[in-house]
């Protein structure tokens, strides 16, 4: 069961790694000075998780999403969420065809492989929950008919933290379905200048946001399978569980980490391990993914959840290898 990288033909692995590096490079070119964000996005992607981007308008959320979709060579769809957006606008609906006298299913944007749900907190809870099934189970059910979504289905949702009027904050159940929450943040001055320069050159080019596809169809899936097979030692898992338990007992956290959260966290750590070209997960991997993974799903009574998560991580000693067995 513990399948590792070695079980795959070495050349194929090399090729996939090479392609992943190429994607990272392209994304870094598109989003200047945000290599750490790109890294986290890739981690989220390889972990088969969904991503929530929380930031101000104009910081490149959509750019990132579109570039990613382009790089993956996947079908990309975008939903601009507004209060009048209906669930059927997202999932699709059955339309009566006058000619054939039959109901025809019109697929919604959710059937794309990469879905960008812009300003998701502007949609009504009803529409938000329509996404729920799609995100968790990678399927939609319309009129009792089940339609499976692609296995690499990846949701990038954005939300604007400033505006409060006319927004519907995402419920905890919905939040738990995201693997990570990221804030892109403002770029550095030098990066902004480089961006401006690039904009002048690029104005002539036809495709503004898209980047050439890097992966062939199915390659992302095999990468994701590779990631899921990376082994995690029991003492590292114990550390993970300890942190999880601590979140449930912390005085300033009213909603602790769920078992699903633990699973997602472990998967994210595995992704990071893969990116670091290792084949065993270390506590460093868990710590590096702690803030994006935990901040989306912990109910923290604080405007700065990062601080509390950092404190929490610092409280718990990392394990060193278990003692040699004397038996």
């Amino acid at each position, binding site marked *: 069961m513990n399948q590792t990288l070695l079980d795959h033909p070495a050349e194929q692995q090399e090729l996939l790694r090479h392609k992943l590096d190429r994607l990272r490079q392209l994304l870094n070119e598109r989003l200047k000075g945000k290599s750490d964000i790109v890294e986290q996005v890739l981690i989220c992607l390889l972990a088969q998780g969904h991503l929530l981007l929380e930031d101000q308008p104009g910081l490149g959320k959509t750019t990132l999403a579109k570039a990613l979709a382009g790089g993956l060579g996947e079908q990309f769809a975008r939903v601009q969420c507004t209060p009048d957006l209906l669930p059927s606008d997202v999932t699709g609906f059955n339309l009566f065809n006058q000619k054939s006298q039959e109901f025809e299913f019109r697929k919604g944007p959710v059937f794309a492989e990469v879905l960008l749900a812009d300003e998701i907190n502007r949609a009504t809870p009803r529409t938000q929950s329509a996404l729920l099934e799609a995100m968790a189970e990678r399927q939609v059910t319309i009129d009792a008919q089940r339609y499976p979504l692609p296995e690499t289905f990846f949701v990038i949702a954005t939300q604007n933290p400033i505006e409060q009027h006319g927004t519907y904050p995402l419920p905890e159940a919905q939040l738990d379905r995201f693997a990570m929450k990221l804030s892109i943040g403002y770029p550095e001055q030098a990066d902004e200048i480089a961006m401006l320069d690039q904009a002048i050159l690029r104005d002539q080019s036809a495709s503004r946001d898209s980047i050439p596809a890097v992966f062939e169809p199915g390659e992302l899936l095999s990468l994701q399978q590779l990631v899921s097979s990376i082994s995690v030692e029991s003492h590292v898992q114990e550390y993970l569980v300890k942190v999880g338990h601590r979140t449930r007992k912390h005085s300033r956290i009213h909603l602790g980490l769920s078992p699903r959260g633990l699973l997602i966290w472990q998967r994210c750590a595995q992704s990071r391990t893969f990116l670091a070209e290792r084949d065993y997960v270390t506590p460093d991997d868990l710590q590096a993914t702690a803030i994006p993974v935990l901040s989306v799903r912990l109910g923290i009574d604080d405007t700065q959840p990062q601080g509390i998560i950092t404190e929490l991580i610092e409280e718990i*000693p*990392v394990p*060193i290898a278990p003692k040699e067995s004397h038996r």
Partner: protein
Amino acid sequence: MQPPDVSRQYGLCCALVVCAHLATEIVLGDQHGQVWLILSKFTAIGLVVGILCCYSVRRNWQPTGMMTLLAIGVMVGPLLIEPLWRILFGIGHPYEIQLLIGFRNLALLNLIWARTIKYERLAIVTSLFAMLFCISSSNDPSLIWICGLFMMLGICWLCVKYWSELRTDCVRGEKRATPWPLFGIVAVLLLGALLTMSMPATVRTRMVEGFMPSSGGTGRADAYARSGVGDGDGLVAATKEALSFAPLEDAPFIEGQEPSLYDVFQDTYGEPKVPKKFDRALSLPPELFNKNHHRMAKAKKSSRTFSIDRQTPQPKNHRHLQDTPSNAMLHLVGTVPCHLREMTYDLFDGTEWIPEEDRPNHERKLSVVPVNEKPWITWPTRPSQFVVTSDEQHALRVLNVKTNRVLSPVNLKGVHIDLCDRADLFGWAQEDILTMRRSTLPGMTVIHVVSSLIDPRDLKGSDINLGYGQENYQVLPVGLGMSEIQKLAEDWTRDAETDWEKVLAIGDRLRSDYRLDPSSVPPENCSNPLLWFLTESHSGPDYQFATAAAVLCRSVGISCRTVSGLYASPDKYEFATQQTSVHPSDVHWWAEVYVGNQSWVTLEATPGYEQSQRTLGILAKAGVLIVSGGELAIQYWPITLVIFLLTGWGIRERERIESQLLSWLWELQFRGSETSPGRLRTMILTTIRLLDRKLTLSRTPRSVSRTFGSQLAADPTFPVASSLSEVDRKYLSRAFDWACYSPRNKDSDALESARVHQLCRSLMHQTIFRQQHS
């Protein structure tokens, strides 16, 4: 489902407690000796506890806060119920057996919750206690078998526990905290014990006596006592009628062969010289002169005076003067040193001491007062008005001396001889010397005496006036050289402000400047033996010291007298029997200072003899321990100095020393220039553990919330990493991560073991400097 270790451990624990329970029942049944009774009681209690245990296992009973109360209840219960049993049924157990039952109950109670490790341990410990108790308090042969079984089960339990803990540790991978405080306590106790061992036997003995409640010697008797301690019935009088102590009917007609005290004195101190005809007079007021003159003549006639002008004593070839165990004059139980008084002397004519008058003492009328149902002979005493006194109890058994005077310490308060409940058996021989109205003290009979001791240490700061009392105690002889003695006394006490300081000054001077020499006697034709002792010979027997002390004190106006008697020396204290033997060589002279209200304080001026002091309390004993430890340290000062310097250096450089030791430890384990790939992981993990310890020692502990590898790679200021290049640091970091977190069955292909070995060695040998705290 419980792991097999836990259930095995629980089973063994049950077996251990059952063993202890059976042993307890056997000890309890000792007195009845009926096997069926023992077994049925054992089974009944065992069944009840067994049912409770099953119930506890089934229902997963958890101990609550009531547990402590319950534990106290079962422990103290037997003690509380005991009086009821005794009153209602007339049966009971001695105190130690009640304690044993308490321990057994506690073990059984803990067994009910013994699936919890804490209670399991308690059950084991209490059952061990009970088992030890049983073994030491009974000699039933079956106990040996049970004890053997208990030992075997105990060893099995320890083995199972060791393995299960090992397994738990391996699974958890946790480093368990070392119980340093516990180690500290054990170390201090061991050190204390070692220190005690190194002390002289007398100090050791003084420290431990009376600590244990069952030390004995308290005279407590218990009808339910088994044997030995607390069994007050051990001393059985020959007859209920205590008028005669003779064990045989014709005993009164048998003349004893024991030497009288007078003989012993004569043999020890030599014969007095024939008095010379020279002018001797007493400086008495005219109204007292006639009376005292008459008394003197009477005393001389009956040879009761004591001359300090004596001939050289003959070599001690008398058999009865040898200090053999069989030749002890009496045995004493109680605090030593102890001055047992036989006769007091008030008048001194320059050569001879005249005993005090045998006058009837009406003020001190003897009466019998029962104390703890024992008859005590007492008399009215006036409490001392300004000094603290402490009651001291002594018991003495006369063996080999003929005297009818009750040999007792100063300020006698009461006398008790078992079954002797008539006051008219006693009388006053002198002012405060009690006598029995018979020719000798009863032999082989224990005489208890209580006296109130005035500790000289308590008088130190007080400015009491010691210049009152009867004129007899201040009388000085008038004759040749007496003015010189008076001058000497004034000389010696010049710096003293209070009377007591004068006394101390005289005593200290005599003890320090003069030498005890029993064979040193004044030459022929010496007109004033005392002056000869004080100014010429500077050495003499103990009566010279006593006389000098008394006369010098009187010279500065302090009431004083001399006493002859026996000295119970601490050197002769026997630890095994807790008693002190007094031999013929222990006859002694000393002086006493009057402090008012018929109270006297012993003034011991003879070097080599100690002043009586009050019994030490626990704190004072601790003080003695410290002082004697200090004395030992001073005695062997070079060793002390070396230990002190080494310890100081060790404490100062402890981090550096331990750090160096850790480096050596690493070298010892991983000699050579390379580690085999199979041992690479072990080597790295050992390096991490040792480095962690080194970092803690240098007060720059690693952050526990980060992995060693990440700190090594990311932090160039990380103390152990400062000597490595960045490439090396990253390489090593990778190796550390691999060792800690990769699957165990997986070898690293990417790591060169020689390089890792080399880097680890350089880390281990790097000096980590202690961070300076601002």
